[in-house]
């Protein structure tokens, strides 16, 4: 196992009765990464987080946080970990501030200034003294994020952090996570089924279905290693097609109404431009269409028969 890994799981298996939630989960999250665990509902994302945070016990395999065994015994390590798992749950008869103070007291306590700062960060400063029972779902979700930020985590484990937030709230949460990652090197491990959330926020991703990782790596690696579809707009499409069909870096080339469509690697785009110009053609445009995470995800999961797990 890597010494730099903040989260590591090896062959993690969890079964609820006859239902398999995790079937040998292998994940490695490096320090400072923004790591997305992506998968359909019921893929085992929440179970993975439950095991990592000690809420449930794995049947087999290992889970480590900061190189130490995770689980209910990993109490000391959890001082450095902020967690959101499933729906926000608070004491409705206490105010947002009282809830935070109560929870912070279990992590060694937090000063009034720290509580105020976190409430301000999540946009709850104005309603901090109102009882949580009067909060909307979105406000509870913000408070849930706030409790994960108290006192000062090195690692955030977040289960669907943008769930229940309006579009502005979702953007604010993403910006906050980026800021924490950039300014304080906080490692973020989040599970979600929202593809755009991962695409916009994460540097690394693992795609999970039926309790197993089917693809993992940096987002650029996963998307950039694939071919791009390139639209080539020139003054002489017929000639361009002829040239590009014979060019080694082009896998396929087709004539299209507006020009030529070729499939090649992303670095080959500049070479294609150079070849066409050298042949005396005028190039009006080279438009690469990279495979989106959504397309990758759909392609990876299209053959999977999703069996319901305990998350669903």
């Amino acid at each position, binding site marked *: 196992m890597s010494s730099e890994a903040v989260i590591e799981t090896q062959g993690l298996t969890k079964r609820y009765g006859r239902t398999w939630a995790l079937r040998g989960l292998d994940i490695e999250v490096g320090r400072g990464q923004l790591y997305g665990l992506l998968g359909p509902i019921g893929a085992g994302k929440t179970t993975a987080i439950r095991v990592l945070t*000690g*809420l449930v016990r794995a049947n087999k395999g290992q889970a480590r946080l900061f190189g130490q065994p995770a689980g*209910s015994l990993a109490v*000391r390590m*959890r*001082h450095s970990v902020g967690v959101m*798992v499933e729906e926000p749950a608070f004491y409705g008869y206490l105010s947002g501030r009282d809830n935070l103070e109560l*929870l912070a007291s279990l992590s060694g306590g937090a000063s009034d200034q720290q509580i105020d700062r976190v409430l301000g960060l999540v946009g709850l400063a104005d309603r901090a003294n109102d009882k949580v029972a009067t909060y909307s779902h979105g406000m509870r979700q913000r408070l849930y994020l706030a409790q994960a930020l108290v006192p000062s985590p090195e690692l955030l484990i977040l289960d669907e952090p943008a769930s229940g937030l309006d579009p502005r709230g979702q953007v604010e949460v993403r910006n906050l996570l980026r800021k924490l990652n950039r300014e304080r090197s906080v490692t973020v491990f989040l599970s979600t089924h929202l593809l755009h959330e991962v695409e916009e926020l994460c540097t690394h991703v693992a795609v999970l279905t039926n309790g197993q990782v089917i693809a993992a790596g940096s987002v650029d690696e996963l998307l950039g290693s694939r071919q791009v579809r390139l639209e080539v707009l020139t003054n002489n499409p017929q000639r361009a097609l002829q040239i590009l069909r014979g060019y080694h870096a082009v896998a396929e080339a087709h004539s299209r109404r507006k020009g030529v469509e070729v499939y090649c690697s992303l670095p080959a785009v500049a070479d294609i431009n150079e070849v066409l110009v050298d042949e005396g053609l005028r190039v009006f445009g080279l438009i690469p269409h990279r495979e989106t995470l959504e397309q990758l995800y759909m392609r990876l999961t299209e053959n999977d028969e999703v069996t319901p797990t305990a998350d669903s």
Partner: protein
Amino acid sequence: MKLRQLLIAELNKLLAQRVTYVSYVVLTALVGLVVWGTWRYGLPHELQTALGDQFVVGGKVVTGPLIPLLLIEFPVAVYVLIPLLIAVATGGLVAGEKQTGTLRTILIRPVRRAGVLGAKLTAAWIHAAGLVVFVGVLSLLLGYIAFGPGDLVVMSFKGSSFSILAEPQALSHLALAYGLVVVAMIAVASLGVLLSVLCDNPLTAAGLTVAVLLVLQSLRLIPYFQWLQPYLLTEHIGAFRAALSPMINWPDIVTSLSYLGAYIAGPGLFAMCVFWRQDVRY
């Protein structure tokens, strides 16, 4: 240090809940009713009958210390009402927090499960003791306000005899009796916490706790199960009676305390073992 913080958190939660205050309001109403009934109608019928035909009583029979005695002897209070109020509170401690998801919110903090349950058990015990002490102190206070000081007439358990305890002696015997009820109610709280750990719904946990006590109480009354009687929790809830005779029956008290100790520790340890391994999926 962490256990103290967890305990403070649990006590704060108990104090912040309406059900806690409702419990004290209900007990205040009960004590108030007993004081009013005694003021309006005098001695309870059994005591009046026992005294009236055979003795000429000089001075007061209804005195301040009589009210805590009536409340402790009143079976509804010690066998039904206080256990019910304890069961409602303990049901919420674990099963209630499972249902609302707040147990998950607690367990994702850097706390040990043993510490969390230890704090919950201790809070339940403090709450149980608090209810009993509240009844004792309030009834004594209201008794003194309504009827003034005086000696205490104590009937034997079966109503065949009675004794008179001088006031200082009466107060010390009452304190011991209430102390024994405190221990018995702590055992009820341990049972309640165990069932709260085993259930996912606070009402089910509270209902089961009361049901278990009723079943144990029923077993005492069924002749076939007479042999079980010395081992039953409900038998030892009545240990306070040994403190109410002029000569305190210490051997009976020690025996009952041993059984009550087992009823406190057994369910508590079992609850700890279950909670330690329990998957929290709520």
